[in-house]
């Protein structure tokens, strides 16, 4: 018989994934890799929603995941369009070279 995974395990896994994503988003220089790290963070959110929804036996968390996924897809579409636009003008999407505006 399959043993149910204790919710705590999922919580810890989601925290680890979220941290990896956050660190990646801060340290990486390529805009596409930064965006991939952000997607990783969103997936950590999804995992947490699913796990806690399961623990509370409530549908709210599961429903939320659908919205997070949809919005992540929209963000990907818009983000890639912006990357293409930057690439056309600059020839790269490296965050280090995007420096016309002083921080």
């Amino acid at each position: 018989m399959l043993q149910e995974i204790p919710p705590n395990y999922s919580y810890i896994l989601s925290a680890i994934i979220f941290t990896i994503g956050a660190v990646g988003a801060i340290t990486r220089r390529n805009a596409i890799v930064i965006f991939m790290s952000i997607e990783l963070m969103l997936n950590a959110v999804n995992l947490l929603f699913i796990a806690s929804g399961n623990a509370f036996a409530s549908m709210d968390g599961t429903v939320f995941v659908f919205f997070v996924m949809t919005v992540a897809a929209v963000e990907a579409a818009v983000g890639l369009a912006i990357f293409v636009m930057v690439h056309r003008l600059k020839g790269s999407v490296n965050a280090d070279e995007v420096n016309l505006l002083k921080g």
Partner: protein
Amino acid sequence: MVVMIPEMNFGWLIPEITIAVFAVITLLLSLLWKKGGLKPFLGVLPLIGAVVALYYTFHLWNGNLDLFNRLYTIDNFGTFFKAVSLIILILVILLSFRYVDREDIVVGEYYALLLFGTLGMMILVSSNNFITMFIGLEMMSISIYILCGLLAGNLKSVEASLKYFLLGAFATAFLLYGIALIYATTGTIDIREVATYVKGGGFLVTPTFMAGLALLIVGFGFKTASVPFHMWTPDVYEGAPTSITAYMATGVKAAAFGAFLRVLFTAFHPFFSGWTIMLWILAVATMTLGNITALKQDDVKRMLAYSSIAHAGYILIALAVGDRTLSSTVLYYLLVYSFMTIGAFAVVIIIGRKDSPNTGIESYAGLAGRHPVVAAVMAVFLFSLAGVPPLAGFMGKFYILTDAIRAGYYWLAIIGVLNSVVAAYYYLRVVMYMYFKEAQTDIGLPDFSVGSAVAIAISVWAVFHLGIFPRTFLMIAYKSSQIFM
């Protein structure tokens, strides 16, 4: 399992539906009218939509009910912020007529995205549920990401878009993780049920709950451009088209503060002692850093960006004080701030030209001699931003600082007053340039148009009216914040 079909009462959603329908029509007509000479008239359509939606929003006043299984809420608080977003939208559209034409911005997408962004704001401020709130927030943010980059071929604008997109998506992830952690602790995504949970017995301040609250504050702090989550603000505000900068500095800020206020004062108010200190620090850092960095800016657009950070700090004072009976001052302040900021950006727009935005402070030298009216209205907006009586900016600051003193936050009030003294320097510097300096180069007369003249006139009137007769608006703001009682 019995599935309950919620009552479908779309009558309460007329403002939102109007905006959505007009956005789609604008997008479609822009395709049909591409070749014809009707393009300049395309802006009239969203303007009509915004005015109609504003008219119906006034009818929502004093309506209090939940729609669609408590996913959407109609109350005075939401109605107030809806009206503010729509007023901002109307002013921005009026400013855009000439500007869009001058800068060769793709008209259809521009207006459609403005409308969709406003729709997002309206959803954001009228939901008591994290799902709807999140959808509204994203609808607003994604529209703005695109709008920032609409100056095609302009590297600065595209860079601003990229920066705002990456940092915005990053902040959204934080906000979502905050919501997820709160859900993991309380088991609900309805913010009023979170409040019941916090009030109820057996509530322990678990690390998950605290982390969730902190991440939520990070997410909203980013959207409202509070220090230390403000790094994107000056760059994005400088690179984006000026009309969009005005829209971001007012609309996005007002809507984000609306949602922030609702979440903090509804869901987490019983747990007030846990977050007041966080917001105290945030408010002081935001005011001080915003004002001090603004001092050394020579670019008026960038200076106004830092000034908008500083104003977020003043608003955070009221949030840190956390007195729910006094939260109406925030609403009043946001209204006042929107008018004076849009006015100042309107002047920046009409001073600019296609290939030279003329945002440097030296472009303002001798403006009073060349065009006394423009110089005078700019001076009114700058004095109001600095907080000089009898203008509206003074009343806004006065009420916020009075609240802080009344609640016993003396240090916060003192820091606020000191900050507005510092702020006076950089606002008055522009006035000094306009009136007492000789122009180095001739940049010609301001690029006036009927739309911008109307927008500036409305803003000037509002700055005087709200400053001299604040009572009516304070009463409206007071009634709006009654939902927290």
